[in-house]
């Protein structure tokens, strides 16, 4: 089974996304033999109040409950976030939250963010942190949003060892504390392969060596990104088939089943 832990629905503020509706995304998944995808609202990345984006995703996911796994975009610096989290979990059945600290004006190290992580962990929701949304070289003249700092991520996963994190849309982990074997960090986070290399520098191979096959997950970034590069990485990755099976879906299934 192939499970994509890095997918989205809806409009994005700075570029028209193809296949941004539920039916379109499902057709793309069918063509690429992707069984399930964790989806959150692309619109909520730039909405001040993210909950209408979550409402939209919930409606789309409800119609494809066997394929789409809805995640909530929650901004812990915005009024009513705890009510939104409750609604997303209890009413919409959302299985995870996505955090955009650099877009939403807070840091992962802020107390309010840790409150959100605690609340989500109590509900056994997976906490997904996109390190970036788009390549920074193509950013709009309106915004300058840096990548989520790895040091902030490391501080958060260290401070909340009982929570479970999925780091998506990042690159350069192998040279950071998050990708080191002897970092002293808890093994409470996984890393998706969407922006990692599988040949030449082969960051996926480095992370397999450093962290082990339980710590990597499949992610495409669709529909922001084409899904094929991530699929190709699994094809060409020099790793035993059991390790590839874990990356392709087993690790994600385990994380989503709790």
């Amino acid at each position, binding site marked *: 089974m192939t499970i994509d832990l890095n997918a989205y629905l809806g409009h994005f503020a700075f570029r028209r996304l193809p296949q941004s509706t539920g039916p379109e995304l499902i057709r793309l998944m069918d063509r690429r033999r992707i069984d399930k995808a964790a989806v959150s609202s692309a619109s909520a990345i730039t909405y001040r109040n993210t909950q209408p984006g979550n409402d939209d995703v919930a409606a789309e996911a409800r119609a494809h409950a066997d394929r789409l796994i809805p995640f909530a975009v929650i901004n812990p610096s915005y009024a009513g976030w705890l009510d939104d989290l409750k609604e997303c979990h209890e009413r919409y059945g959302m299985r995870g939250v996505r955090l955009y600290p650099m877009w939403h004006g807070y840091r992962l190290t802020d107390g309010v963010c840790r409150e959100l992580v605690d609340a989500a962990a109590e509900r056994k929701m997976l906490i997904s942190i996109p390190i970036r949304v788009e390549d920074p070289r193509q*950013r709009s003249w309106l915004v300058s949003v840096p990548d989520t700092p790895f040091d902030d991520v490391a501080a958060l996963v260290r401070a909340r060892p009982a929570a479970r994190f999925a780091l998506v849309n990042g690159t350069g982990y192998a040279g950071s504390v998050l990708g080191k074997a002897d970092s002293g960090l808890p093994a409470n986070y996984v890393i998706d392969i969407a922006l990692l*290399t599988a*040949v030449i520098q082969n960051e996926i191979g480095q992370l397999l060596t450093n962290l082990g096959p339980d710590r990597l997950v499949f992610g495409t970034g669709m529909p922001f990104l084409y899904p094929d590069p991530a699929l190709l990485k699994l094809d060409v990755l020099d790793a035993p088939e059991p390790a590839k099976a874990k990356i392709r879906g087993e690790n994600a299934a385990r994380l989503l089943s709790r």
Partner: protein
Amino acid sequence: MFRDVLSRRALLASAPAAAALAPPGVTVIDCHAHLHHHSNARWRELDKALIDAADKLGIDQLCCSILTPARPSGPEQFRECNRWVAEAMERFPRRVLGYCYVNPGYTREAVAELRHWVLDRGFMGVKLYNEYFADEAAVFPLIEAAIELRVPVLQHAGHGHAHTFRDSQPRISDGGHLARLAARYPEAMLICAHLGGGGDWEWTIKALRHARSVYVDTSGSVTDNGLIELALRVCGPDRVLFGCDMSMTAGVGKVRAAEMSDAVRAQILGGNMQRILQRRNRLA
């Protein structure tokens, strides 16, 4: 020449990536690749890793240059790079094709360097970086030499907003510079480098819509959904060239993913570049 390559690819056809990438009989040419500067202690290993990656992904030939780590480079520095490319062409026969990298600021040396490597050693093109804007007068003698030699010019390019590139690369060219150069030299074969690594690709594609002699190269780490389709729609399938610029699965994956006919995919993956290379072969 291509028969050997094709039979080699046939051996690789069982690899899922290779089988999925190209329609049968297509020679896949990466129009934008780099070998590693020999100041990198791992250059041999990394060059071999590039060829291994090409094998896995079904890429038959790679058009390669070596750039100096520090720029602007002087004549001794770019000559050294080109010698290393020539050595790699011998080390990886029929897999590595050579771009001659020069700094246009050294007009006499740069033109002589290009003529030497194309005429005497079979290099297939010239690679220009960001020492000058593409439409600056310093570049013109090289463009005129490339026209005479019937070789393409691969121009490093990017367009960002709010100083994305300008601070670090004050003379980086963009689609606008290339369009102006094309207007001055419509017979030149110009390639605008890495749509997938040059910032706002929608801007670049639109800037080049009417510059019909400029090709766009799909390379770079950015795999934005829709990039290839927009390039095809705006520039047309005759002007789109497959490339990776060392982002191998990104380069292959986006061409595999994009919606197009098999005939168009064959054009992008190799047909268009073969047509470019054949112009030089006719001269030879």
